[in-house]
């Protein structure tokens, strides 16, 4: 990468970071800040899912299940055993990672539609268990009074304070993703996407690579789930843990652009905000997101980020 390109990149990153840092004060309304928090939480999941779907080319139609696993682990540990939320969070990540490893070993031997269905079936089972296993999960009533997180004695009781925590996690996830993509394992991942056979003959352990990225994406989803639980202070079988949200996650990743680092944030931003407006207006989100998906795939298959970039390039070339 040329020097000026690298410098441009740093400026862009800096500008975005500044915008993110200033946002709560620009928005001034706690409701909007809470939406921004959910954008961040969804972005964390999307970053992980992007690694899995965009770079490694594996499909998951059940990722909401890992969010649920993280959220409920945090919720159950903090409300039932009084464990500190800061300890419950890594436990939530560990739980989501563990379950994903268990399901991943047999599932990742499948390809294409079979893998999609396996992840979908798994997601369904988790959402049904959440609603049915009342003694553990509180069933349809869910679990309430989940404690807030507190940092060095200061309770993160306002949305603004929580916002910074969430977006710090987003930054961390982005960095993680960027580092991985441009590394030895990242290249192995991207190779697996194009040609498993060729990658294997280069010495890449296909099964292990796929499992590792699957577990990583599940762990990130678990982290997001935990953050979600401590933000809402309530978990219950709802939209975020069901099949509909797994699909919404796919919309986010496709919208932002499979295999672009920033795509996850752009996608999360647009889809979360859209959803907030469409859902109260008679659940229009289902249809609109469906249309977005189909139209995107037909006309802008590389997602919004690439689509806009190539449109801009084409406009520049015209006299």
């Amino acid at each position, binding site marked *: 990468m040329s020097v000026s390109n690298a410098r441009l990149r740093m400026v862009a990153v800096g500008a975005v970071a500044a915008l993110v840092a200033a946002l709560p004060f620009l928005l001034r309304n706690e409701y909007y800040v809470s939406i921004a928090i959910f954008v961040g939480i969804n972005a964390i999941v999307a970053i992980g899912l992007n690694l899995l779907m965009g770079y490694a080319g594996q499909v998951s139609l059940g990722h909401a299940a890992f969010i649920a696993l993280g959220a409920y682990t945090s919720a159950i540990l903090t409300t039932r055993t009084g464990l500190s939320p800061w300890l419950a969070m890594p436990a939530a990540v560990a739980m989501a990672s563990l379950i994903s490893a268990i399901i991943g070993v047999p599932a990742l031997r499948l390809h294409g539609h079979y893998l999609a269905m396996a992840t979908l079936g798994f997601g369904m089972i988790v959402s049904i268990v959440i609603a049915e296993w009342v003694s553990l999960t509180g069933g349809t009533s869910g679990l309430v009074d989940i404690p807030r997180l507190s940092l060095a004695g200061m309770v993160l009781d306002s949305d603004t304070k929580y916002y910074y925590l969430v977006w710090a996690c987003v930054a961390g996830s982005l960095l*993680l993703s960027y*580092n*991985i993509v441009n*590394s*030895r*394992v*990242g*290249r*192995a991942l*991207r*190779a697996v*996407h*194009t*040609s498993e*056979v*060729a*990658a*294997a*003959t*280069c*010495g*890449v*352990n*296909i099964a292990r690579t796929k499992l*590792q*990225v699957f577990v*990583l994406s599940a762990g990130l989803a678990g982290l997001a789930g935990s953050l979600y639980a401590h933000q809402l202070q309530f978990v219950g079988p709802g939209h975020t843990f069901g099949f509909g949200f797994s699909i919404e996650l796919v919309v986010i990743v496709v919208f932002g652009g499979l*295999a672009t680092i920033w795509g996850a944030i752009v996608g999360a931003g647009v889809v979360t905000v859209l959803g907030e407006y469409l859902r109260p207006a008679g659940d229009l989100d289902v249809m609109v997101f469906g249309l977005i998906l189909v139209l995107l795939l037909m006309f802008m298959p590389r997602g919004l980020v690439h689509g806009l970039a190539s449109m801009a390039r084409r406009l520049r070339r015209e006299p």
Partner: protein
Amino acid sequence: MAATVLEAQALRKVFGGLVAVNDVSFTVTEGGVKAMIGPNGAGKTTIFNLLCGVYPLTAGGFRVAGKRGEGRPPHAIARMGLARTFQNVQLFGNMSAVENVMVGWHRRGRAGFLAAALRLPWSRAEDRAAREACTERLAFVGLADRAEDDALSLPFGQQRLVELARALASQPRLLLLDEPAAGLSTREKADLARLVRRICEQGVTVLLVDHDMDFVMDISDTVIVLDHGEKIAEGPPREVQKDARVIAAYLGEEMEASD
């Protein structure tokens, strides 16, 4: 005495009702170029796929540098020192030429997910060294100035060379070339022949499969002839060319084609 790089014993592969490879045995000693030729459908590429672990053997076995290869997954066989190129060039998309070659280097690296995620200094050093080595491999095949170009955007002949550099990046003991001359012009074939010779000089043993008789006879030290999945001749190129069974096998193909 020269070391044995590959020892194949009674290889047999059956697909459903079709016997693709039947009781093929051969040895590849270190240094030089060995070629496998034969009419279409003789089983040449199937044998390659068997040796790489892409297809499981129905029966028989093989050893790579003394280590047993049958039943092992492709990545394990690659780690024994085997590398290959593909008939239909399988480069990785959304990656530059040098990144493609760096995947070839993969087995020589150690940095995993954790080291990568945290950008540990030793993994960054490892990556830098890898990039240098792989850029050098691209220079070796004459594509140093294409290193950062998107691999799939290169013309076909150059894609072939990138794949070759990728195979060389792992510093293999045995290099399998699957139809390396297919689709190349006369001049490109001559360049390729020179390149293969230089690869041998660097201590890599080459086993190749091709249809172009002149190319094969020109660069090979020994030739194995297959027909309908069986080995029908083996020896130096001049001898094999005069072997009656070989002529019959090829003539047979010509006669079928003229029907």
